[in-house]
């Protein structure tokens, strides 16, 4: 299947929204899924969040203006939905963040979808130990290889702050890996 450009998909939303939505989901589902999954760890949680993200995109696509790129707009919605999900989880269960981290770490041990080796398991646990936003920045840079300029557009932060945050998180993870 030849991939449609963002502009073509956006144009299709005017004439054939169902087809346009299916094209948009097919184009971005993997990026969005892994962006969310690395944050929430559990597949079922990630699945719920991903579905909500695409429903939100479908509902708001008419409000999308070409001031930003479709790709960064989708990522921004995905990031907000993921952070909201994590926040709601903490508020709803009345558990402090440290326990959410413990819960996520235990999911890595239990998750039957985790097939990585021991060092990858340790790496995931080290990432979970980072503060939520640092974790997000680390994942976007280390795994997804997103440019700092795009990350700045998605997260609404300066490039300098993102670089500093990534550098700090790399050092923390290296320390964790050395100690464990």
């Amino acid at each position: 299947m030849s991939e449609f450009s963002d502009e073509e998909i956006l144009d299709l939303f005017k004439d054939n929204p169902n087809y346009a939505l299916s094209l948009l989901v097919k184009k971005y589902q993997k990026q969005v899924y892994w962006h969310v999954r690395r944050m929430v760890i559990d597949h079922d949680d990630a699945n719920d969040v991903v579905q909500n993200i695409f429903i939100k995109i479908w509902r708001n696509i008419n409000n999308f203006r070409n001031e930003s790129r479709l790709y960064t707009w989708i990522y921004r919605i995905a990031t907000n939905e993921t952070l909201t999900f994590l926040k709601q989880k903490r508020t709803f269960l009345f558990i402090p963040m440290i326990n959410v981290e413990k819960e996520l770490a235990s999911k890595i041990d239990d998750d039957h979808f985790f097939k990585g080796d021991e060092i990858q398991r340790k790496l995931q646990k080290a990432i979970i130990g980072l503060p939520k936003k640092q974790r997000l920045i680390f994942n976007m840079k280390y795994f997804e290889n997103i440019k700092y300029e795009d990350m700045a557009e998605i997260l609404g932060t300066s490039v300098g702050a993102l670089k500093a945050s990534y550098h700090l998180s790399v050092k923390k993870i290296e320390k964790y890996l050395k100690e464990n």
Partner: protein
Amino acid sequence: MFVENNIEKESLNNIAPILSKINKSNGMHEPDEYFEQLPSIIQQKCNDLQKEPKIPSFFNPKYVIRYVMVVLLLFFGILVLIRNNNDEPKTNKNISYNDSSQDFIQNANIDDDDESLLTEALTNNSEIDIPSINLIDDIYLNTDDIINYLIDESDDNNENEF
């Protein structure tokens, strides 16, 4: 982009030698055929949402708690108002003669101009004992007495004017 990635990789080697040697795969996997099914699942959900009748925001379940709170507040507010209205302040009209005479007198609930009420209260209330004052006789003067009194008063006033 390639150059930038090389610089970043080199920098990662320097600051985090252990991390830089780890395979970048995150070790997590999605269920089989997940990405094949996801577009149709989302499509279905969007179609269902389109068919759903829109609930007016007033009936939205997330506002139910707020509505209940407002109704309860209104209910208690009305209840308090009704109770306050039942405890009307004592006036000449509604005061009971069974009320204690002390309260009756001390709170000065008697209208100064309503002399008949005072006399009536004094005559009906046996708790008030004023043997030395024959107030009733003083008050119920006959017409002649009143006319004489007024003439006297008028004479006195005329004298003062001259």
